[in-house]
């Protein structure tokens, strides 16, 4: 029992004392996750609107693919992007393997289906009158898109936060494409794996506590955004 209580105590000490190594791992992780979530969101938003609002022949097929990709294993994305950016891959010359950009590419691919599917569902559930009214008010296509995004903003933020939570906690892509290089590509999850293997249990636990706290914070914010949405509807 002492082993656990001692580890937890040392982990808390590491967090409270703002241990430079812990801070470095957390900031690297946040920088990479925020970047990939931002890029994936920019791509997912118009894609989701396109799928939800338009009729085209391959729509059913695209929806099936999208839903399938929701449960995409991180290692599969890792292998796929690895094959592209490794030295013999088509993007090999760009030297992206074992760089933060490499991880970001993998994470963007990982969460595009998730964010797109969630936003698609939000857009799909929006009142049809929203579009008719926008048209009748003299909105251009771009203005209609903007109005739609504004109206769906709480749901969209929820989708983006879900994507952020997914990349923050994933390990497959970060490990395979980042290589766990200290200070460069070492994220919370890859550091936890490495430090546990090295026997630095308290250090790994400290990161685990931070990861859990971040997840809690993400859910907390999402919950209050949903509350805000309900309040606005009332």
């Amino acid at each position: 029992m002492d082993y656990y209580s001692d580890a937890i105590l040392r982990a808390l000490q590491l967090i409270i004392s703002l241990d430079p190594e812990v801070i470095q791992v957390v900031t690297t992780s946040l920088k990479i996750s925020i970047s990939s979530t931002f890029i994936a969101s920019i791509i997912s938003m118009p894609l989701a609107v396109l799928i939800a609002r338009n009729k085209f022949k391959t729509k059913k097929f695209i929806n099936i693919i999208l839903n399938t990709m929701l449960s995409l294993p991180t290692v599969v994305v890792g292998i796929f992007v690895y094959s592209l950016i490794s030295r013999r891959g088509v993007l090999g010359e760009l030297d992206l393997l074992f760089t933060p950009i490499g991880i970001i590419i993998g994470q963007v691919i990982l969460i595009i289906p998730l964010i797109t599917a969630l936003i698609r569902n939000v857009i799909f559930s929006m009142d049809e009158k929203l579009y008719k009214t926008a048209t009748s008010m003299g909105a251009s296509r771009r203005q209609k898109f903007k109005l739609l995004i504004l109206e769906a903003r709480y749901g969209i933020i929820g989708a983006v936060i879900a994507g952020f939570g997914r990349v923050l906690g994933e390990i497959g892509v970060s490990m395979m494409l980042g290589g766990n290089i200290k200070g460069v590509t070492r994220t919370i999850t890859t550091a936890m794996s490495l430090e546990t293997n090295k026997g630095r249990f308290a250090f790994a636990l400290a990161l685990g506590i931070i990861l859990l706290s971040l997840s809690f914070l993400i859910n907390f914010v999402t919950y209050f955004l949903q509350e805000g949405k309900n309040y606005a509807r009332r």
Partner: protein
Amino acid sequence: MQEDKIIEVKKIKKICRDKTILDIEEFAVLKNKFNFIIGGNGSGKTSLLNILSLIDQNYKGELFYEGQSINKDEQNLKLRRKFSVIWQDPYLYRGNVFYNIALPLKLRGVDQNSINKKVRAVAARLEIENFLEQSAHTLSGGEKQKTSIARALITEPEILFVDEATTNLDEESIQFFNSHFADLVTDEMTVVMVSHDSRQIKELADQITLLKGGKVEITKTINNFNFELFGAGIEAPIAEIV
């Protein structure tokens, strides 16, 4: 006397899931007049209004605006911005009443000072100046409809389309609408109104068009208002008019 036609419809056909919703050989909206479209449920009134107001451009046939053929372009922005629509069940966007009334002007890039003045002026005319800061989602049905009327009027449209604006309202709101609507509309405005309300038809109509099964049964220009309308049916008043 030949009346000016602002919108003309020629051989319009709207088919939805193999069912013909509208099949109109010829129909015209008279300029600066109150044009009523009446008919029973499923007669195609709202479908026609959607086509005339360029909300729906998925139809066969031709539409003319002041004699010029209207292209079926999803944007058609310049022309669409001359129109406004008041819906039976209005959609108000997240935000307060002010934001909702101001939206059409914002979309047209009008400066904030003019927006402030215009919103307050139109809100005063509709007696909703005290609600401007209130969230649109907390309004009653009547207040929502007043907000949507203010939103439609703020751009001073050339053509105002009204789709059964009073159907879902309580008696007090209907009375407000009936007593104020004619004053809210300027002489330069053309109104196309889908309505079942015999009082509105009796007081306002310059032209009445009866739709039946997606076809124009009859169009009549009114020159003499001394006719009795029988509240119950649609065909009774039109028979009286004819």
